[in-house]
């Protein structure tokens, strides 16, 4: 049996994964990254508007502080975030952002040459540091450059199929080399999951096609419960039709949201902050306008940037101008951009502490696939890139520490048994004769999630979604694979991705059905108010043969007792 081994194996080559790799590598450990795409193709590259840090580079006398940032984040989370974790993130934000600048990220500049900051939704200060509107691109390329400098090996276009757990400890993964179809166990003293979100469980999503929540499912399958899965963020401004992201920065720079009657409709939903309300509120506002017939024909509203003028658009928002021209055939300098809300971010994920540790020894997680929880029920724009960097760094550091304590290296038989078990399962799938292709089930699931488990939820819809997911899971178990060779086997990848997404969808639906309140992104029409007495707690969903089983845990409150949330 061919066998690979590293001190630390990181699954995923986006911002969190690369930052963790750099930190672990700098501590002298043997580190490798495994990614199903080349790291530069990771979804972090698509982030546009900015990364939050209380640098205080805005115009005087407004002096921003990390405490302001913490408060905005906690309020934005509708008080579901763990406040100790938020404080860690906001305190370390400046250091992480300045470090990226030192490594070469080409941030936009203020008149005095400092990193420029723009206003973002739900933020009391201009706090989002930006590189025009290609911040994620600039950050990801910078980190990858560092990875090249440190000569960290990357298993490119490999897929992690399962976690190998031996004697209560994560001992590595079973990897698939996609180009030659070989199944190769990779042993590691610490495994870090940094695989991003599960946005593609939804029909309309701003996410890359690859965002199937693989890492969340790997952990779930290995017995780690998933936290707060029902909190799914919908971004108010995705390009109508393709749902490509149009950054919040467009509103940060002063863009207006307009309905078909020509009204700036946010007046109805967030009279003070208007277009710069937090995403959950703005998304509900836009969807309400569309649902109540004040949208444009086809079901969209518009984002008007024309008053910003050509120069500002070209200078600050060149990327979204190019997107609008490439994908909607229109120029935002001349016409308003047609937009609609779409799934954007997964607040839920693998529960970790502030050092990325999960409940399974040897397994850590960082970035969107993790739930620390710093976003609670609604993430603020500019905090996801930050989370990836802050907790990527901390997780890489912690993994390096853990490596020294691992004395016992699991016997090869653990990997051999795991591999054999996997192959037996595979044979069984190969023998199935059902002709139903997996894409039909996938598309039904995505449509279901968007229509029944979307921005507005209610009990009958969630109950029917629950039944439907059960049905889809049954149909899924009959799917066979025609192509037996695992090299370039898209059918098999689709199969495994779908398996994972069905389970994640089930956890989302169960969490949403049980949570009889409205908080942040989770809005129950039948329970429109927040209910702190019963629901100020995190959901934990565990995988059982009967489906997702729910449990709950306390929210950590430090300095900010829950208050009514108005904007």
């Amino acid at each position, binding site marked *: 049996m061919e066998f690979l081994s590293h001190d630390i194996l990181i699954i995923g080559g986006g911002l969190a994964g690369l930052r963790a790799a750099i930190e672990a590598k700098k501590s002298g450990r043997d580190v490798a990254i495994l990614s199903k*795409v*080349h790291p*530069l*193709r*990771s*979804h972090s*590259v*698509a982030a546009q508007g900015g990364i939050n840090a209380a*640098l205080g580079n805005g115009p005087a006398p407004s002096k921003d502080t990390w405490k302001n940032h913490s408060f905005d984040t906690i309020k934005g989370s509708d008080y579901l975030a763990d406040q100790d974790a938020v404080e860690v993130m906001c305190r370390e934000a*400046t*250091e992480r952002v*300045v*470090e990226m*600048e*030192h*490594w*070469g990220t*080409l*941030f*936009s*500049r*203020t*008149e*005095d*040459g*400092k*990193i*420029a900051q723009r206003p973002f939704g739900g933020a009391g200060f201009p706090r989002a540091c930006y*590189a*025009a509107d*290609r911040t994620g*691109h*600039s950050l990801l*390329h910078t980190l990858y*450059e*560092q990875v*090249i*400098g440190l000569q960290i090996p990357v298993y490119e276009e490999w897929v992690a199929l399962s976690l190998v757990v031996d004697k209560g400890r994560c001992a590595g993964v079973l990897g698939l080399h996609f*180009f030659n179809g070989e199944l190769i166990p990779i042993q590691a003293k610490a495994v870090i999951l940094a695989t991003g979100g599960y946005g593609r469980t939804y029909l309309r999503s701003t996410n*890359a*096609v*690859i965002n199937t929540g693989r890492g969340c499912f790997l952990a779930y399958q290995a017995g780690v419960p998933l936290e707060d899965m029902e909190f799914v963020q919908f971004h108010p401004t995705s390009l109508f*039709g*393709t749902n*490509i992201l149009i950054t919040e920065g467009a509103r940060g720079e002063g863009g207006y949201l307009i309905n078909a009657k020509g009204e700036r409709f946010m007046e109805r939903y967030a009279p003070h902050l208007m277009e710069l309300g937090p995403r959950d509120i703005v998304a509900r506002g836009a969807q309400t306008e569309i649902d109540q017939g004040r949208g444009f024909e086809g079901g969209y509203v518009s984002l008007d940037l024309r008053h910003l003028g050509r120069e500002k658009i070209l*200078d600050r928002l060149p*990327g979204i101008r*190019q*997107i609008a021209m*490439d*994908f909607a*055939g229109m120029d935002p300098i001349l016409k308003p951009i047609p937009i609609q809300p779409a799934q954007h971010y997964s607040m839920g994920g693998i529960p970790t502490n502030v050092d990325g540790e999960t409940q399974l020894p040897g397994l850590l997680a960082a970035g969107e696939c993790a739930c620390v929880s710093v976003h609670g029920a609604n993430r603020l724009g500019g905090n996801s890139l930050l989370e990836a960097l802050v907790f990527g760094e901390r997780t890489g550091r912690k993994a390096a520490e853990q490596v020294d304590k691992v004395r016992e290296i699991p016997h090869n038989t653990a990997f051999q048994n795991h591999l054999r078990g996997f192959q037996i399962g595979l044979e069984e799938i190969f023998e199935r004769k059902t002709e139903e*292709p997996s*894409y039909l089930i996938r598309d039904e699931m995505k449509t279901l999630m968007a229509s029944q488990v979307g921005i507005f939820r209610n009990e009958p819809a969630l109950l029917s979604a629950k039944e439907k997911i059960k049905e889809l899971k049954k149909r899924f178990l009959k799917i066979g694979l*025609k*192509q037996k060779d695992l090299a*370039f086997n*898209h*059918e098999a990848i*689709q199969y495994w991705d779908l398996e994972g997404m069905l389970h994640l969808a089930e956890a989302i639906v169960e969490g949403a059905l049980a949570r009889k309140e409205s908080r942040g992104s989770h809005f129950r029409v039948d329970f429109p108010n927040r209910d702190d007495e019963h629901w100020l707690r995190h959901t934990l969903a565990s995988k059982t043969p009967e489906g997702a089983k729910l449990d709950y845990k306390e929210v950590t409150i430090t300095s900010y007792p829950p208050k009514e949330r108005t904007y």
Partner: protein
Amino acid sequence: MKPNLLTLRIQRFHPDHDPPQWIETFQVEIRKGMNLLEALLYIQDEQDGTLSFRYSCRGAVCGSCAMRVNGKDVLACRTHVEDLLEEPVLIEPLPLFPVIRDLIVDLSVFFDHYRKIEPYLQGKPVSPHVEYLMEEQKRKEIDPYINCILCGICFGTCPAFEKDSAFLGPAMLAKAYRFLADPRDRRNDEILKPVNTQQGVWGCKTVFNCVKVCPKEVPPTHGIVKMRGRILRYRLVSIVSRLSSLFSHSNSI
């Protein structure tokens, strides 16, 4: 032919197939606003699960889906199929790279060249707590070169790379220029060393193909010309200083 039926002739490659390379025709019913990547994904789902190509962001920022369409190198995701309805479309892998499977090419040489230019900022000393100060004007000057998504399209139409695969290539030379132009990088002219060769800036034919085809409007040739200028200036300065030292030396005799 129905007006909404798109015919795609796709070049396939599989080492075990006889012959290993062949053309296969697919038909896709198109929707308004559909792009080529969506059409390919549709084929993979519903017609042939073995069709291989790369994809990720579907928004022209990740650089995965570069391929040749009717002789032009493009990103599939930003290619509208409505523009392709006129005639049968020929889709081929990005040229000049070895094909691994169907439309997937081996970009190893591309990223080997990337490593050769040491593509990471080597910063001047600075306090760890504050950012370098940089004028916005300076950022704007570098910005066009930062937009590169390393998709490989510029290599496909580069005559210098076609002639010699050791040629560093437009994207990498643009990257080198990006660090040269960056006031934070302490290397200054050290950056020019790996590019001051026939496989570097001197190999470029200055035909601007890369500038024309870049989906992100990166202008590699402009960077190359600027680097040549810098190198020539240094040569001139060094010749002048050598001459003048000779001159002063002979004077002192």
